[in-house]
């Protein structure tokens, strides 16, 4: 096995793939170690894997070594990746973190659909409309909001350290303040028109009021949560469910969405071509490269502008021969990783070449 470090960051892991209900960790080599032509030599190497009970619905790195996984059985598990001997072990488990309330009359289990981490806090949401707040190494949930939503919660992300955003299957975006004891959202946003279910949500890394969501009709909605209760722009994107939306963590004028229709779109609102940033350094917390310089200021209006055609936005489908659904994607630096229903994982290491 090669001594290449695994590709992961403290925020989101680019290299955890699910294969036949296993959690696997792969090495895709050094980020900076590209050959003369920029071509990466070799395939991703499987480092270790472990069985997982139920489908993996979502997962996130908690820190450099721990991964939180949401299961279709409603269980939330924390796995520990031991880097010295390349093994995985289940560290902690919250069984039935998500389940239907009345066990006697309930019909089937409730999957845990989304998980987000901000070490040591872990927030999960599920088909039972429940929100859980866990703390790593604490046996019981710190807080549980039962019936937070009458429909399924599809995804969750942090807005600020004490606030979260959730999206549900009746087209609502909700802000929850975890400091408050009441079990009501502090704000509710709705789609205009048909209440199409929302499947994914992501917040702009620098502009905290800019939020993007993806819906069942493949539409990308961008919201300004400082004002109004409706999205600022609606962009007709995919032909089927949009499963995930991600702002690029260090270069947020780039957005990525993937869909059931088998496509993965790269949304590029960067206006100045000459100023393309260089990404040939290790990933990690190094998001200070683009701190509040001119790039971001012009970008704010780009995402929130009502007319995306005015500000130049380039949209590219990164998949040439699409067949089956792209279920999940992640990005770090110049590296894009995505997985499809054809049981294949793709790694693109020169995203901005």
């Amino acid at each position, binding site marked *: 096995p090669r001594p290449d470090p695994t590709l992961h960051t403290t925020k989101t892991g680019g290299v955890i793939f699910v294969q*036949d209900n296993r959690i696997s960790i792969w090495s895709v080599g050094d980020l900076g170690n590209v050959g003369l032509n920029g071509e990466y030599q070799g395939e991703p190497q499987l480092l270790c894997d472990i069985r997982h009970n139920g489908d993996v619905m979502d997962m996130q790195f908690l820190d450099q070594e721990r991964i939180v996984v949401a299961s279709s059985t409603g269980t939330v598990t924390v796995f520990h990746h031991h880097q010295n001997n390349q093994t995985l072990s289940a560290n902690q488990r919250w069984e039935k973190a998500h389940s239907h309330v009345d066990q006697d009359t*309930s019909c089937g289990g409730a*999957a845990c*659909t989304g998980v987000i981490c901000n070490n040591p806090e872990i927030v999960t949401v599920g088909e039972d409309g429940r929100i859980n707040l866990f703390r790593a190494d604490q046996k019981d949930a710190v807080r549980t909001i039962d019936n937070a939503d*009458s429909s399924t919660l599809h995804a969750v992300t942090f807005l600020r350290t004490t606030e979260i955003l959730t999206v549900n299957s009746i*087209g609502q975006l909700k802000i929850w303040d975890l400091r408050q004891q009441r079990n009501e959202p502090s704000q509710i946003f709705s789609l205009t028109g048909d209440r199409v*279910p929302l499947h994914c949500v992501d917040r702009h890394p620098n502009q905290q009021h800019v939020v993007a969501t993806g819906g069942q009709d493949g539409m990308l909605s961008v919201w300004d949560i400082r004002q109004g209760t409706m999205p600022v722009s609606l962009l007709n994107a995919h032909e089927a469910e949009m499963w995930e939306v991600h702002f690029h963590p260090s270069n947020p004028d780039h957005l990525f969405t993937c869909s059931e229709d088998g496509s993965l779109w790269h949304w590029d609102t960067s206006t100045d071509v000459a100023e393309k940033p260089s990404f040939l350094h290790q990933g990690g917390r190094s998001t200070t490269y683009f701190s509040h310089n001119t790039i971001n200021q012009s970008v704010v209006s780009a995402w929130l502008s009502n007319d995306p055609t005015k500000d130049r936005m380039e949209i590219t489908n990164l998949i040439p021969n699409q067949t089956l659904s792209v279920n999940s994607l992640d990005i770090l630096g110049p590296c894009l990783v995505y997985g499809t229903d054809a*049981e294949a994982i793709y790694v693109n290491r020169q995203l901005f070449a």
Partner: protein
Amino acid sequence: TPLQRMSPSTTWRLIYLQVFEARKEIRETGYYTAIKSVNPSRVFVVRKDQDIYIQTLRKLFNESHGIFIGLQRSEEELAGKSRKAQLVQVSKNYRSVIRACMEDMHQAASKFVSILSAMELIWNLCEILFVEAAAAGPLLLRLLDWVRLHVCDVDNMVREVLSSENPSKHELFWNVVDVFVLQGRMDEARHLLAKEASANPTSVNMYKTLDDLMKKMPVPSLGNTQTLTEMELKWQHWHEECQRYLQDGTFASNSHMESICKILLGDEDAILEKKELLATWYQFLVTRLLYSHPTVKPMELRFYAQSSMDLFLGGESSPEPLDTILMAAFEFEMHQVIKECSIALSNWWFVAHLTDLLDHCKLLQSHNLYFGSNMREFLLLEYASGLFSHHSLWQLGVDYFDHCPEYGRVYLELHIERIPLNTEQKALKVLRICEQRQMHEQVRSICKIMAMKALRNNRLGSALSWSIRAKDAAFATLISDRFLKDYCERGCFSDLDLIDNLGPSMLLSDRLTFLGKYREFHRLYGEKRFSEAAKLLLMLMTAHIAPCSFWMTLLTDALPLLEQKEVIFSAEQTYELMRCLEDLTAGKSDKQKFQDDDVETMKVEMLRLALARNLARVIVKEGTLEGS
């Protein structure tokens, strides 16, 4: 036993358990049947052989799915050479997937490696004979490559000799030289012989002659540098030259070299002497062809193949399934090949994809089976059906059904409803597939199942979301009734986040509209916007949005509005209210009136009183001139 006709390729294992109280869980997927006999509970559990779902085969299925789709979508307009080249490339792609899987499986089960190896062998031959349809000349070269690729029994020996310090002194030296000659690897043979030559200076002349002969041997060329006749002529001359040297006794002193010369002349006995080095009859066949009929025509193959097999096996052993299949290919009996493969291999993957490819090459006549669909479609349907019993490979099956014009749709409709929907995400994927193919029945059915599940789990928002997806007005009505029932029982609404934010989906069903509007009424009242609330309340009844059963509740809700200090309802509105009340009470039969308890009658009385009072006040108010 009354078991159904089994597909010939799936193997069934009968496992019978003696169970006293049979409480086994029957899995919902797969083909499970329990046949209980009269005698002490014996449950026969019939299980499908699990080999199809081995881990590595999934890679085969997934990758070949991509190739299959690509082939179906490929340009049909390309004609002649370019189309053939395209089809050959597809065939090569399939084979490379098989080889990739072989490499993956190397560490694991060797049984499967040999099955894959056999598959690749057969496919490769079919590619040469059918897809590429190699003509005389190139045909031999292709067959030589084919044999070299697959007969690797001798590789270890070759490696051993080549890597030894003094190859020419190795005991297996001549074996290796023979192997090279038998496989037509002239350069390598000459290279080894040169080593021997330098060690034995006395026989230098002999070596030179043999080396010369081997160098000069004419082989068919791939390009158009010579015609077949030219090559045949050259070959004839060369053959005669070899003959002369043999008869002159040039090689008489060295038996090894003499036998090589005989091989070069195509002497069957000489070749057969090297049986262990040949390993298989088809290797023998190709060697024979190389040295006796290098310009063999495709249609002549069958004769040489049959005789080769007979000579090689010599009546000692009978042909194995693989041999039968290869023979059928040499005889250009495509249907026979497919049939034999179906029997020999335990899953449909191979025959389905191969037949599809051959069909695209326009090589299969529509061979009508008794239920009318053709062979290609039959095999694809069987393969895809097998995929559907797997919890995630079913998605591949969908695309295969799509490309079965006659029965694909029906099969899909039947299979897709039986996929277990253990998460909402899976249900959404299934729904998307159904919607894309206008399978409205299935959409309705799946949404109803999901909505019902949600309702049972008290997830009213989810239930509504599913009804909206299916545009199922009846279910939306059901959900609204649930809400209203809750309200009546508890006096307040549950799930306000849902009801307050219905948006245009409110129009899906009248009951849902009513629910939304009713909630709006409560909101308006809470915000003290009384006249708007009043108007809305009245509209709910007069426009018949409210169900009759709810009218009493609505009228009771009107009471506080009637009792307000300022007059809210106009005269017109009051008359409307009174009419509504009368409609309501008139509708009741005498018996019902008798059964009404005191509360009910009192309510009606109070309403009548309040309405009358309101009417009185409003008549006065409306009759009064402003400012006077």
